[in-house]
């Protein structure tokens, strides 16, 4: 199809570059610089979609971010994206788009039957129509509604685009590059301030691109181009187009979404598709302009009805006529500007003005060039189904209540202007309580809450001269405050046409006997009658009316509908608009790609990963890894076709019979130094620490102030004033912060320093009956006998020339040692242990075997120290000092904590000695008791005992102390298991702890 509606030599598009695109399977062409909307309109395509609820035909209503209708499914570079506004999407070669929300096609849409059933779909229809009979909801109504719901189709493929973030700081952030944005940016830049100027459209200049004004003897557009060109050369200025500031957050942090390559056929390799900017600004200038609002009349959603400013923009920016026979319906002078542009390009418009006798320069000009103007006239209803064919018009009485005789006139589009609504979203998001400005029938920002100021049309100022004056002044003043420079900038002369007052008129009354739908919210199909129903049904708060009718909750977020909705409510309620108030403006101003919000923290990099210095060795030796917080730890070292169960059993067994080695680098290590280090430990741990000799380790338990166990571990006295504390892997960071809290805030009198040395030392635990023989071979010059290095002893030596720390501690319950070397030597140590250990049949073991070993021995770990247990529960009460005070001690006196039947750790063995017990299962007395079956305890950890070759679990059981020998049931409804069990001691293997001391 040829571009019937394109006019020669008009517009800012590049006519030298023709671009091919497809819409609903049909091929069209447009030009570089077009949007999908302008290119479709140039081709005479007005029907782009169907409405949400009634599936009525939808065309184009605006030319930008406020567009409620023209939503398409976009195909680009073998990917698809739903819900793209055709008015925002720039054209590129090969673009493909389809209509959404219609089936089988936009021309014949089955859902449109809703349009004839609309009596069943009034306001709040979700809440009432489909409520009865109750059983119908799941089976009939919901599936039906769901099928009809939604706009575009979400691709369930992985998103291949790259999204990046950037954190930036500046002196002045300016949102919008219209006259106020440009002039304030220029003035501030001249004072040397660091300025960021953001424009959501591809072209800078805002209203200057389409208005007929003169600044400093240039056209508005030329002046804007000059300013931008100069700003771009200044090193202290960043200007960004295609960049929408969508959120104003705390402490002057604003967030901007920059579309880096949405206008290209594909994103350049290594470059982002979108970049999300977190900008912290000292001052913010909001120059976001205003959006024209519609006048409400019958069938005002018919394709071909659009904002008069949009018609002007399509003409002046894209050289596209939205109609050849336009009707312009206005209550202010803006409609005339559009009419004049039409006329200038050889099209004869008719202007209907609701005002009686308006007079102004613009109107005079329109009259002078012979435009047909009808005063006190309104559009009663648009006629035509898929496109406007004619309009029913009538004269209107001065009080706007009575319509004259209805006439029908031919037209192919209706351009409507109901005056302007300042875009106050950002100011409101900042916390600014807005105020209603009577002269313009709209809200403007009130008192600034953060360091923000709103300028120009966004502040309800529609005179260009005043806008430039205040904006230059604001830019100068705010930048001067920051840079202390005061460079004078001359404010250019302005020539603009003066306007007359607009008419406080926003909705055409229904003619008698007619029942036209008059839409307020075009995307969500909310009409005047829907709001009337909501109010009749008793909804008063505007927030409730909004939710009940869904007014303003569509993807355009009510940019064109909110104010008319308020006017309606205020009229029915007989209140002034400010008394009705408006709904809260929340970020984002426009929908933002979730991928852009997330940025690069995706896939395996969604969280950082921590690796030990021996990680590469583990990898090479078939380790299967497990997440331990963000650490990666070997779970087991797979041999052949072994599974986890077989592999971990083999490893654990080898520890019990020979010797095993485990990477324990991840355990938290904290260096504690200072004259008061011992005193600190004494206050933090439940047991006594003042008399620990140098060269000895001790096991300790620390509590939270509420008496609950926080962590456990061993601490070794390395020298007089130097202790080495270990923590569990999971609690390492919390324990450090906990110690700092007490040292800095609670006991500042203590002279001690704590610092994490987790990363300084690589750790290997060697465990098993042959571990001493191995140790002796590794350290031939030391006496590592039971006397030379007794249980809980510590020594330093060197391992083939490498400084090593040797601790005789055990988590496995076997004779065991832990060797630490500095991290760069970690792999060397590990390989040496493996090499020397070969003759003792050493095997590396992972966390699963480690777990088995500790469970069998009844050693508590994270699953018992789960933030809900006290020392008694873990059979650790012997470590609780009665003599000294410590963190959390006072809480241990609580009734529940000293009750006779207090929960306590026990062992659990299935009666059949075969069935594995799922972790997290409950223990009950009677498996057949009615629900809720009283829970006596839960399984905290399970393993397959390698010592006895049967399942064994630990449990925290009510009155556990007196339950040994009892028969209970383990129930796991999730796994559908009921297992008869016997309660035994938690110390299943080596109950006297002889092996560790052997």
């Amino acid at each position, binding site marked *: 199809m040829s571009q019937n509606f394109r006019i020669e030599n008009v517009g800012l598009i590049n006519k030298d570059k023709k671009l091919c695109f497809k819409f609903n399977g049909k091929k069209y062409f447009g030009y570089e610089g077009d949007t999908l909307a302008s290119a479709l309109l140039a081709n005479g395509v007005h029907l782009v979609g169907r409405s949400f609820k009634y599936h009525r035909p939808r065309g184009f209503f605006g030319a930008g971010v406020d567009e409620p209708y023209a939503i398409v499914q976009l195909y680009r570079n073998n990917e698809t994206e739903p819900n793209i506004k055709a008015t925002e999407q720039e054209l590129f070669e090969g673009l493909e788009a389809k209509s959404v929300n219609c089936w089988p096609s936009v021309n014949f849409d089955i859902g449109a039957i809703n349009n004839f059933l609309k009596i069943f779909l009034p306001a709040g229809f979700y809440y009432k129509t489909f409520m009865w009979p109750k059983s119908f909801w799941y089976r009939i109504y919901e599936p039906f509604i769901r099928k009809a719901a939604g706009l575009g189709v979400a691709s369930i493929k992985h998103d291949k685009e790259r999204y990046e973030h950037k954190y930036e700081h500046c002196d002045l952030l300016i949102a919008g590059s219209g006259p106020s944005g440009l002039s304030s940016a220029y003035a501030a830049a001249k004072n040397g301030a660091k300025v960021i100027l953001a424009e959501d459209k591809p072209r800078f200049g805002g209203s200057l691109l389409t208005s007929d004004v003169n600044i400093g003897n240039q056209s508005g557009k030329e002046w804007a181009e000059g300013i931008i060109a100069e700003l771009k050369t200044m090193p202290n200025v960043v200007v960004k187009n295609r960049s929408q500031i969508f959120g104003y957050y705390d402490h002057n942090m604003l967030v901007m979404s920059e579309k880096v390559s949405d206008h290209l056929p594909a994103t350049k390799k290594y470059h982002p598709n979108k970049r999300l900017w977190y900008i912290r600004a000292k001052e913010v200038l909001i120059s976001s302009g205003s959006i024209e609002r519609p006048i409400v009349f019958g069938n005002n959603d018919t394709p071909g009805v659009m904002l008069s400013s949009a018609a002007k923009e399509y003409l002046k920016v894209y050289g596209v006529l939205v109609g050849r026979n336009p009707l312009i319906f206005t209550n202010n002078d803006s409609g005339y500007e559009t009419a004049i542009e039409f006329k200038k390009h050889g099209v004869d418009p008719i202007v209907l003005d609701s005002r009686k006798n308006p007079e102004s320069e613009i109107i005079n000009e329109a009259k002078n060039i012979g435009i047909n103007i009808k005063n006190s006239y309104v559009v009663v209803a648009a006629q035509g189904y898929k496109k406007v064919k004619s309009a029913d018009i009538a004269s209107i009485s001065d009080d706007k209540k009575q319509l004259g005789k209805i006439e029908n006139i031919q037209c192919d589009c209706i351009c409507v202007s109901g005056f302007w609504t300042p875009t106050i979203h950002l100011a409101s998001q900042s916390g600014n309580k807005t105020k209603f400005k009577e002269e313009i029938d709209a809200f403007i920002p009130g008192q600034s809450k953060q360091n923000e100021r709103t300028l120009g049309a966004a502040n309800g100022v529609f005179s260009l001269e005043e806008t430039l004056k205040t904006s230059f002044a604001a830019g100068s003043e705010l930048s001067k405050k920051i840079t202390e420079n005061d460079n004078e900038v001359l404010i250019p002369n302005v020539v603009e046409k003066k306007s007359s007052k607009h008419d406080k008129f926003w909705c055409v009354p229904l003619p008698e006997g007619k029942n036209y739908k008059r839409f307020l919210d075009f995307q969500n199909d909310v009409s005047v009658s829907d709001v009337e129903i909501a109010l009749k049904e008793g909804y008063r708060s505007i927030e409730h009316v909004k939710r009940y009718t869904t007014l303003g909750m569509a993807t355009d977020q009510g940019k064109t509908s909110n104010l008319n909705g308020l006017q309606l409510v205020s009229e029915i309620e007989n209140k002034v608009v400010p008394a009705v108030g408006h709904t809260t403006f929340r970020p984002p101003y426009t*929908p933002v790609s979730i991928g852009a919000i997330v940025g690069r923290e995706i896939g395996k990099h969604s969280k950082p990963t921590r690796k030990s210095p021996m990680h590469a060795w583990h990898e090479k030796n078939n380790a299967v890894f497990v997440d331990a917080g963000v650490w990666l730890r070997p779970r087991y070292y797979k041999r052949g076709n072994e599974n986890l169960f077989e592999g971990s059993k083999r490893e654990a067994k080898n520890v019990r019979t020979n010797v095993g080695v485990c990477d324990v680098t991840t355990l938290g290590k904290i260096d504690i130094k200072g004259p008061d280090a011992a005193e600190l430990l004494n206050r933090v741990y439940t047991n006594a620490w003042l008399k620990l000799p140098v060269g000895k380790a001790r096991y300790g338990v620390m509590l939270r102030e509420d008496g609950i166990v926080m962590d456990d571990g061993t601490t070794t006295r390395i020298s007089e004033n130097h202790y080495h504390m270990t923590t569990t892997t999971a609690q390492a960071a919390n324990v450090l912060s906990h110690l700092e809290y007490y040292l800095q805030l609670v006991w500042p009198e203590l002279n001690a320093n704590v610092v994490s040395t987790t990363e300084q030392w690589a750790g290997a635990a060697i465990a098993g009956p042959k571990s001493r023989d191995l140790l002796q071979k590794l350290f031939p010059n030391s006496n590592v006998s039971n006397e030379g290095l007794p249980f809980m002893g510590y020594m330093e030596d060197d391992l083939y020339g490498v400084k090593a720390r040797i601790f005789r501690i055990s988590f496995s319950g076997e004779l065991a040692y832990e060797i630490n070397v500095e991290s760069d030597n970690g792999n060397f140590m590990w390989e040496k242990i493996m090499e020397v250990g070969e003759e003792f049949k050493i095997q590396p073991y992972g966390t699963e075997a480690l777990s088995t070993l500790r469970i069998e021995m009844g050693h508590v770990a994270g699953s018992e120290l789960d933030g809900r247990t006290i020392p008694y529960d873990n059979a650790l009460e012997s470590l609780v000092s009665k003599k000294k005070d410590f963190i959390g001690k006072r809480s241990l006196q609580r009734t529940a904590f000293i009750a006779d039947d207090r929960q306590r750790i026990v062992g659990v063995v299935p009666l059949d000695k075969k069935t594995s017990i799922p972790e997290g299962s409950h223990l009950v007395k009677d498996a057949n008791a009615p629900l809720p079956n009283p829970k006596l305890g839960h399984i905290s950890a399970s393993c397959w005992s390698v010592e006895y070759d049967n399942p064994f679990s630990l449990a925290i059981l009510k009155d556990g102390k007196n339950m040994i020998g009892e028969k209970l049931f383990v129930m796991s409804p999730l796994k559908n298991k009921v297992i008869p069990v016997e309660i035994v001691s938690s110390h299943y293997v080596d109950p006297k702890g002889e092996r560790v001391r052997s």
Partner: protein
Amino acid sequence: MTLPIETHLLQACVSEPVKPVLDSVVTFGAGHFYVSQSDKGEMVMGGDLDGYNSYAQRGNLPTLQHVLTEGIAMMPFLSKLKMLRTWGGIMDMSMDGSPIIDKTHIEGLYLNCGWCYGGFKATPASGWTFAHTIAQDRVHELNAGYSLNRFSTGHLIDEKGLGTKTWIS
């Protein structure tokens, strides 16, 4: 009377509506994320607290960024959708993460608070037992555990095991 409650901020968001892709609520426990699709087609998503006391009913984007990061980890296709609306609510966080449903020492004053962010799912049962508590002026067997004095006696109901640091996620 002092309540062991701190007021915090929780945000949620919805995407633009899309055709049905998800027919149930899915929560990602380890990632602190939940998602469901509304009848209108919007994906409704949320996660953890912003992490400091607040009555502002406005949150900040990094928290939602974190929530959505977890969301994409679970359902990568969410990346191509657009976030339409966000909002922040105030949460009465009790010191063990469970609600308080109880009578008080003041005649005629009953407590039903500290719901943290778990309210709706338990509303029918708690409403019923609370009505019982008021009507009979004694706690029902099923809400007896949710007493205010559990913080003094130590009979806490701390499912997450985080203790009093309600802001930790």
